[in-house]
């Protein structure tokens, strides 16, 4: 059959990236906030609050200062458990679920670059993860200081802010990584669990430089170290806490750099993968 190709003068432009990312992030945020799994994630995030509550009720005079509690929470609960769990739940599904469901077809047939779609979805997931974890930390703060305003000091507030930033950084890096996994794998949950609770735990526990190959190491490396005053109970606890930390710390800037680079690289890689992704439904 004969044909004549259309010759176009100027191709229509895609939607500006900022606008496209903004719209997709906004609607994705609302979508993620309405998902049922958010309820179970919210309940899991009550664990540190319960821990602080228990300390206040049953161990009020055992020397577990707010400083120590906060450092212990971030080091032993948020970083090795809560951040990966929350990031996995929202990150792995951020892109992959839409591809699996087939709903991504509607954004793919708009004048929007796929990189903007990826970035919008990822930003929404990172926002949800950060808000969930931050809410948990804020509730811990409220339980710690309720009726005990004396614990609030400049040092304490600084430590709190620092913990927020560490958790935020962890949420960004882990969510970006899990979003990439969700783009690569049809069923990303198993590889994500193997990574978070297999590889990460294994590598973070190996001394010397091998431990630097885990995100957990770098996040824990950023947590402040309590001053050790031998003799008293807090001193003993601080010693124990320090012993549980990475044995070969690296400079903080190095850990921040690693986390930022991991988040950036996985995001760029995810964008590239989505560019070549095909929809089957």
């Amino acid at each position, binding site marked *: *059959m*004969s*044909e*004549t*190709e*259309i*010759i*176009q003068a100027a*191709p*229509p*432009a*895609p*939607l500006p990236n900022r606008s*496209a990312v903004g*719209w*997709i992030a906004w*609607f994705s945020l*609302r*979508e993620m906030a*309405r*998902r049922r799994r958010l309820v179970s994630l919210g309940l899991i995030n009550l664990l540190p609050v319960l821990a602080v509550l228990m300390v206040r009720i049953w161990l009020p005079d055992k020397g577990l200062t707010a400083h120590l509690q906060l450092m212990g929470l971030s080091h032993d609960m948020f970083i090795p458990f809560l951040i990966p769990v929350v990031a996995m739940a929202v990150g792995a599904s951020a892109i992959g679920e839409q591809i699996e*469901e*087939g*709903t991504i*077809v*509607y*954004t*793919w*047939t*708009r*004048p*929007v*670059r*796929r990189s903007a779609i990826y970035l919008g979805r990822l930003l929404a997931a990172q926002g949800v993860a950060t808000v969930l974890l931050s809410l948990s930390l804020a509730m811990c703060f409220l339980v710690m200081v309720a009726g005990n305003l004396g614990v609030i000091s400049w040092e304490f507030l600084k430590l709190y802010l620092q913990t927020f930033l560490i958790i935020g950084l962890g949420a960004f890096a882990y969510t970006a990584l899990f979003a990439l996994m969700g783009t690569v794998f049809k069923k990303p949950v198993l590889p994500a669990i193997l990574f978070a609770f297999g590889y990460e735990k294994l590598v973070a526990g190996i001394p010397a430089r091998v431990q630097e190959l885990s995100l957990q190491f770098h996040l824990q490396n950023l947590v402040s170290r309590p001053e050790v005053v031998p003799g008293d109970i807090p001193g003993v606890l601080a010693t124990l806490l320090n012993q549980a930390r990475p044995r070969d710390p690296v400079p903080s800037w190095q850990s921040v750099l690693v986390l930022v680079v991991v988040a950036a690289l996985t995001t760029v890689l995810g964008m590239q993968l989505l560019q*070549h992704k*095909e*929809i*089957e*439904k």
Partner: protein
Amino acid sequence: MSAGLVVAGQEARITALRVGKWFGEVIAVNNCSLSVGSGVVGLLGANGAGKSTLFKMLAGLIEPSHGEVRVLGARLRDRVGWYRNVGFCPESDALPEWMTGREYLSLMLRLMGLDRAETTRRADAWLERFELVDAANRRLGGYSKGMRQKLKLAQALAHDPEVIFLDEPLNGMDPVSRKGAIDLVGEIGRQGKTVLVSSHILPEIEAMTDQIILMDRGRVLAEGSVAEIRDKIPEHPTTVALVSPDPRALAAFLIGREHVEGVRIDDDQRVVVRTDHAVAFYRALPGWVRDHGLAVTEILTLDDSLEAVFQYLTAR
């Protein structure tokens, strides 16, 4: 050839050149070429014929394993700006369940680059057109299959695209909505836009257009109007009804004649002839009538329909 498929000198808005797609060892689409201009063209084929895969390739959702597709002269996958002029209604029923109908349609329009006022105006107009105003603020999770189908159609059409892909758009619609959608597709075609619409239900396609592309087992079997396709296959067995004042005499004469496979008299006293070569039969009939004094007052072709052609072409 009438509107729809491209004739010499006409603009080709959708072109596929020897495209193929395989998933592992399964060949979904095999060496298909087509050219579509303005108007409505039906893509007809049984389930699994490769229609949806071809649609996805044309719409830039999947990359052909070989060959090339272009819409409005561009590869949509590389030039996403062209989606401003393209509407796509997928076969899949998936929609973001948490959104309301209005939110969903508004988002689709905003992502087409429309401003807030225009988005609101068009969303309202299309919700009204598809009688979804009452359900507009309900979540899509509670929509019936027919309502979802209407909303999918609305998102494909609301930005007024030049090229529209509708993959099984009438699935799940009630008869009234179906009629409305068929009329709408016809109306859009008459506006000079290009509509490529797929279905595995023959009467649906027949109701929308007589320009068709027949697909089976991943291949384009034929394209053109039903009559054109029919003419290309003279060896296709055809059933012809002859009206005669003396049907018994006519039937007796026709039995055993060349190209006559079978003869019977139906309930309307018509002589129904099954021929293995319609063209030859039609050529011979006047001579038989004249030379043997037969009386034939009317000739009816009973199976010149799309269904007969389709069944013949896809016979396994």
